[in-house]
């Protein structure tokens, strides 16, 4: 935590989201510069590979602990994809599993003190959400041709209402990548900022000699940290399940 000239701790909740080059100072020069964001994405990929490749190496009938974690994640996402997309969703399972596990590990690695939460940046989540959005459009038109546009034409509604509903459906369709990305980034950013604000409050209390009063906020801080772990998992799950729902529109566009 930064310290001001008089020695008092300074609360800077947004400072943890600064993207900067890993080697040498200055600004982020080009998009090829290796930043702290890049570093933590690589760490996430390495951790995922370690879990899924090294963990599954034994392929034991009675799984070890690491193997059973990998198996639980796999079967959990697989049953979710099968429930929502049905049998023809099998093709898209690797994509959804990749998205889920990358977001899950990015979120959880962001909880390591001093680390950087890559998913707290809209730039990162927007790419993930746009990839989903574009693949929904491409898959929809590839599978159904112009029939994909039936998605916007609600045939179960009365005829007079259909143009109005079509307008609403079109708007809600194009808002999807926005809400999809901002939900994840907003949750992670807000959660980490809250943690930092509470930590700053504790530091201020201890600095001003009221350390005894800091016991209760410290307990609350622990509870909020636990809640953040829950949010990290739930947001990864929600991102994956929404991807499934959106893909379902592409596969079965008629209501």
């Amino acid at each position, binding site marked *: 935590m930064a310290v001001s000239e008089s020695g008092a701790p300074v609360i800077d909740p947004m400072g943890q989201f600064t993207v900067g080059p890993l080697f040498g100072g200055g600004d982020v020069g080009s998009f090829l510069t290796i930043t702290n964001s890049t570093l933590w994405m690589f760490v996430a990929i390495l951790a995922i590979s370690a879990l899924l490749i090294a963990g599954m190496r034994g392929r034991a009938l009675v799984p070890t602990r690491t193997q059973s974690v990998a198996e639980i994640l796999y079967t959990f996402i697989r049953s979710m994809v099968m429930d929502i997309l049905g049998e023809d969703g099998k093709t898209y399972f690797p994509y959804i599993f990749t998205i889920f596990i990358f977001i899950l590990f990015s979120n959880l690695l962001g909880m390591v003190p001093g680390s950087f939460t890559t998913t707290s940046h809209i730039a990162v989540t927007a790419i993930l959400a746009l990839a989903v959005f574009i693949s929904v459009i491409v898959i929809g038109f590839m599978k159904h041709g112009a029939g994909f546009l039936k998605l916007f034409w609600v045939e179960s509604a009365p005829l007079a209402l259909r143009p109005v509903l079509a307008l609403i459906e079109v708007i809600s369709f194009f808002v999807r990548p926005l809400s999809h990305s*901002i939900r994840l980034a*907003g949750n992670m950013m*807000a959660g980490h900022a809250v943690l930092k604000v509470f930590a700053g409050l504790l530091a201020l209390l201890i600095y001003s000699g009221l350390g005894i009063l800091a016991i209760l906020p410290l307990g609350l801080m622990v509870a909020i940290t636990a809640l953040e772990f829950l949010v990290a998992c739930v947001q990864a799950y929600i991102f994956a399940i929404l991807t499934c729902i959106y893909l379902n529109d592409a596969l079965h566009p008629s209501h």
Partner: protein
Amino acid sequence: MEGNIADMGKFIGAGLATMGLGGAGIGVGLVVGNFLAGALRNPAAAAGQTATMFLGIAFAEALGIFSFLIALLLMFAV
């Protein structure tokens, strides 16, 4: 006093925008509360509907997050 009127408007606007998050709180509470009420009546069917509950939470929350975004935009981008 330092600062100017535009900054003042920015901060007041950001503060007002965060009120939208209260609405998200109400929405999420309604979703989970109704889910629990239903789940306690028919616990056997509850397990199959947790995914739907999370979806409801996600949609209710998204609109609150939008207002959070507006607050952030006012603070850091305008």
